[in-house]
């Protein structure tokens, strides 16, 4: 090649080759250095970095909210359901990916969701990397369709520049019937947990199982998603009959309205409660307390107005003269948040299971039943009532201080004689009396399937604590505390042949698809008394409504025979003789009881509170509507007077609540009024609000 073309070509000289080798060695050295560096990184940091890498992993996973199960009444009417709603989520990072996205998206947000453009802008400016910001919450589907249209590629309004907004599915709990059975149903917190009532007690059943969406790396390193779908909660079918419940609630409300501001500037009573129970199954057909509240708007202060104020422990606030303080809008506005919440808690709680009080004379059938069941009395005994009985160091009065004279056991119930009861109690003795209180479940929880049942164990006397005076007062229902649910459940067993059914409000648990998951059958927990005793008690209680001198006469609805017992109980402190809890505990029909009804009016708003008629009128009105509804036929021919009365009731159903109580004589004045010495307290000294 040399000399080709006659020109000597410059060659790659030997020294150049040497230099190239030097260069190569330098490169080799550098490579070796890099290799060593790699080796050290792996040797020294492998474990730490492996952990670091794993700890950085935040597999994009998202909880999928499960639809909460419905709550239905016995007729299938929906009391609570969860609607699908959407949260509008802003993904700032996606939005800021291209500058031209910003303006159209903000414009669309403003026009479709009515958000404040300024707020959105400032959020975007301060959080450019945010991926999750809730712009609007719980919008129904109709409200998001317009925006969805803009982001849907198939739609003609499609605007590709609108981005960074997505919708998170969620559910909103709604109560189509508003305040119906409010304290029974309960409600849910914003995070979907039940609070009060069925919602709380059956929370696990209703909530279902949240699903999850996992993001992970697929085989080809694609981000893939696995969805474990949420399992919708089961629905519950309540034993509550919405129709009966509305009848009851309407009557309680009408009663309240009739007596509102009558004596004090307050509601018609501190509390008005009513339970209707199927005596042969323990199922609760209606359970209501007044005031109720709107389940869709639980923090509406309206129902609070006129209610007695509670302190930070939930007890009623009373001044030195034991006067209550009633809530007004002005007073509410001065309360701090904790105290305000206490007022709401007092409103939301279910009076019929959570509040305790001294039952008064409605306890008398239990005393008699205890005596007969144990053979302490035969039922043919006669007692002499002089208006009081000397027990221990006390003179304990009958409500009729003039005395009932000579009377037998049946009459003792009919006229509600305290002296007769004290004699019977004395015959029974402390051991048997306390044992039977236990048999009747007083002082024990009934196990009703509602959240918040009060504990009353310390509110009844134990055998050790009970002396003769306590025995005497307990025999006519003073000195120990009960809840309404305890009382009516025990009473049902007393008149149904002695079968103590567990009270319950849920009949069936149904899956989302409608299949029955579980039937809740009536459950007999125990036999309280024998059939014979039960029959006897029913006779006595029939007499207490139907008898000549019966205290419960006014509870009887026209055309029906019912039985029951009135009650009027003093509250503490006893010397005031001002604040009473009046009640009626009855059943219908008289000869073959189907339902038990218990109405309690806690401190009616009246100067003279001791009349059981506050409760019996409510009972009569409710039964007049409920018994025909239940298909229980009238057994009695209506007198002309009753016919006119029924006509009148149809025309003006609640007029009876406006009839002045005091003027109508003392036939129902069956209370412990004047009965108890001032210093005789109650078991555990518990009052209301526990």
């Amino acid at each position, binding site marked *: 090649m040399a000399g080709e073309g006659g020109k000597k070509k*410059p060659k*790659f000289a030997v020294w150049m080759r040497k230099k190239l080798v030097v260069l190569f060695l330098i490169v080799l050295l550098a490579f070796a250095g*890099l290799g060593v560096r*790699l080796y050290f*990184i*792996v040797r020294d940091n492998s474990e730490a*970095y*492996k952990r670091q890498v794993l700890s950085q992993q935040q597999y994009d996973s998202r909880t999928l909210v499960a639809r909460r199960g419905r709550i239905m009444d016995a007729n299938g009417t929906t009391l609570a359901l969860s609607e699908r709603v959407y949260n509008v989520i802003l993904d700032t990072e996606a939005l800021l990916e291209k500058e031209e996205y910003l303006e159209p998206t903000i414009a669309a947000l403003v026009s479709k969701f009515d958000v404040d453009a300024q707020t959105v802008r400032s959020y975007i400016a301060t959080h450019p990397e945010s991926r999750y910001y809730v712009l609007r919450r719980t919008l129904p589907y109709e409200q998001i369709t317009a925006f969805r249209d803009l982001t849907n590629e198939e739609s003609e309004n499609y605007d590709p520049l609108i981005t960074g907004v997505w919708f998170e599915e969620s559910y909103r709990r709604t109560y189509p019937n508003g305040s119906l059975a409010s304290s029974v149903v309960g409600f849910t917190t914003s995070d979907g947990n039940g609070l009060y009532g069925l919602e709380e007690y059956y929370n696990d059943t209703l909530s279902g199982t949240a699903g999850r969406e996992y993001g992970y790396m697929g*085989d080809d*390193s694609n981000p893939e998603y696995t969805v474990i779908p949420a399992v919708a909660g089961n629905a519950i079918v309540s034993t509550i009959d919405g129709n009966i419940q509305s009848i009851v609630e309407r009557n309680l409300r009408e009663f309240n309205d009739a007596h509102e501001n009558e004596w004090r500037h307050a509601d018609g009573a501190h509390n008005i409660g009513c339970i209707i129970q199927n005596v042969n199954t323990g199922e609760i057909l209606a359970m209501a307390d007044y005031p109720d509240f709107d389940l869709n708007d639980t923090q509406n202060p309206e129902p609070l107005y006129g209610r007695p104020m509670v302190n930070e422990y939930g007890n009623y606030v009373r001044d030195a003269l034991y006067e209550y303080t009633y809530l007004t809008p002005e007073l509410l506005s001065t309360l701090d948040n904790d105290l305000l919440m206490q007022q709401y808690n007092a409103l939301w709680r279910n009076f019929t299971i959570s509040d305790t009080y001294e039952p008064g004379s409605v306890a008398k059938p239990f005393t008699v039943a205890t005596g007969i069941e144990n053979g302490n009395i035969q039922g043919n005994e006669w007692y002499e009532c002089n208006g009081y009985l000397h027990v221990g160091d006390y003179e304990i009065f009958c409500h009729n201080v003039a005395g009932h004279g000579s009377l037998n056991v049946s009459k003792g119930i009919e006229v509600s004689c305290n002296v007769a009861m004290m004699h019977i109690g004395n015959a029974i003795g402390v051991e048997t009396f306390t044992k039977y209180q236990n048999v009747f479940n007083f002082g024990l929880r009934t196990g009703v399937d509602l959240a918040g049942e009060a504990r009353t164990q310390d509110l009844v006397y134990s055998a050790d604590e009970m002396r003769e005076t306590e025995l005497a007062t307990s025999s006519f229902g003073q000195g120990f505390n009960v809840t309404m649910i305890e009382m009516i459940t025990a009473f049902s067993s007393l008149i149904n042949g002695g079968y103590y059914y567990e009270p319950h409000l849920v009949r069936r648990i149904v899956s989302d698809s409608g299949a029955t998951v579980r039937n809740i059958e009536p459950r007999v927990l125990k036999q309280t008394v024998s059939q014979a005793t039960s029959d006897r008690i029913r006779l006595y209680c029939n007499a207490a409504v139907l008898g000549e001198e019966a205290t419960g006469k006014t509870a009887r609805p026209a055309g029906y025979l019912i039985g029951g017992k009135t009650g009027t109980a003093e509250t503490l402190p006893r010397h005031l003789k001002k604040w009473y809890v009046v009640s009626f505990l009855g059943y219908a029909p008289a000869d073959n009881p189907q339902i038990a009804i218990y109405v309690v009016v806690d401190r009616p708003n009246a100067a003279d509170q001791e009349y059981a008629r506050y409760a019996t009128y409510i009972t009569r009105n409710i039964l007049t509507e409920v018994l025909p509804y239940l298909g229980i036929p009238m057994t009695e021919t209506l007198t002309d007077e009753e016919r006119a009365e029924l006509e009148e009731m149809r025309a003006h159903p609640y007029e009876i609540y406006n009839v002045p109580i005091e003027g109508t004589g003392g036939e129902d004045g069956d209370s412990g009024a004047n009965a108890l010495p001032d210093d005789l307290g109650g078991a555990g000294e518990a009052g209301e609000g526990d």
Partner: protein
Amino acid sequence: MTGNAVRKTKEEVRRPVPFRLLKTKDGGADGSVRRAPRRISLGYVDYSLLLTVFFLAIFGLIMLFSTSSYEGGLKFGDPAFFVKRQLAATLFGVVLMFALSIAPDYRMLQHLAVPAYLFSAGLILLVLSPLGYEANGARRWLKIGSMSVQPAEVAKIAMIVFLASLVLSMKGKIVTWKGFAFFLGSALPVALLIYKVTKNLSSACIVMGIAVIMLFVATPGYKRFAAMAAAGSAAVFGIVYYILHYADPSDSMRFARVLAWSDLESYSSGTGYQTLQALYAIGSGGIFGKGLGESIQKTGFIPEAQNDMIFSIICEELGLFGGLCVIIMFFLLLWRLMIIANNAPDLFGSLLTVGVMGHIAIQVILNIAVVTNLVPNTGITLPFISYGGSAVVMQLAEIGLVMNVARRIKT
């Protein structure tokens, strides 16, 4: 007759085979023409070089697919988005490589040196025209039809050709300080253009690095280079010292990178994030790695992992073993290039090869030094493996030139 024929054959083999001979199958009256298949052979083909390059390119595509499928799927809805584009560029590059290797004698390029130089400079300036377009916050590309070209990559190969030619033109004058200055100074305008127009300091540095390496080989003696190395080191040390003690990271992105380099953990949420995540990738890979495709760090933790951080994903998936294998492959490649340079038929061919060798060596060393945090983050890609169409096409073209040189090696 026989002896004559043998002698003639030897002559033929020694002589570089002119390109036109390949086409003359009918030949002349000479009997040797009948042995045309042997005489018009491709000459010396360095199969080791070819295999190494193919290995790196295919391995690069596999690793690129593994690394980029997450981001491709996420951003473009196609896990193979990046690898498809890279595959197209690689195929084009391979065609270009073979075309250049069998194309007319590389020595023709000596005459094209100045036009190539001017052409590359013009291309860089074109970025400023409407043909240029911006991606990832930097205006570095030219859009020609559906193709995008990074002029800086073209400039590197053009610079190699130009400088090799310049050495020949300068002859002995190059050995003086003035010659040094002229040689390096002639590379400077293009480097400055790359830096100023495309804001690509790393490519500018590579261009200058190539110039220094070619000068090193083309001039005798070590003292000046030692002095230059010392001065350079001192300057680097001084600058780094200044940045570490007096600079505010908000002043400049480059300051921030130096600060982050010195203390990754403190800057882990900002400038140091990428490098720190790369270290996590390397460290967590262990000796044999998590397995091909099993990288966690590529799933959004190392931003743009398919670019200059791909080596860390290789280490994460294939471990220290895989990383060292890649280094060894580059070592083999450079070794073959050195062999070819040492045996090239003339100085021009040698210098061309040295330039290519320098180019690849600089990029490999700096790239791996960055992912192992030995130097501040510079954004230099790993040849044949990192994502980048222009880069892989030009690197394959450089190999094509080297093969053209190799073909003419006398065996």
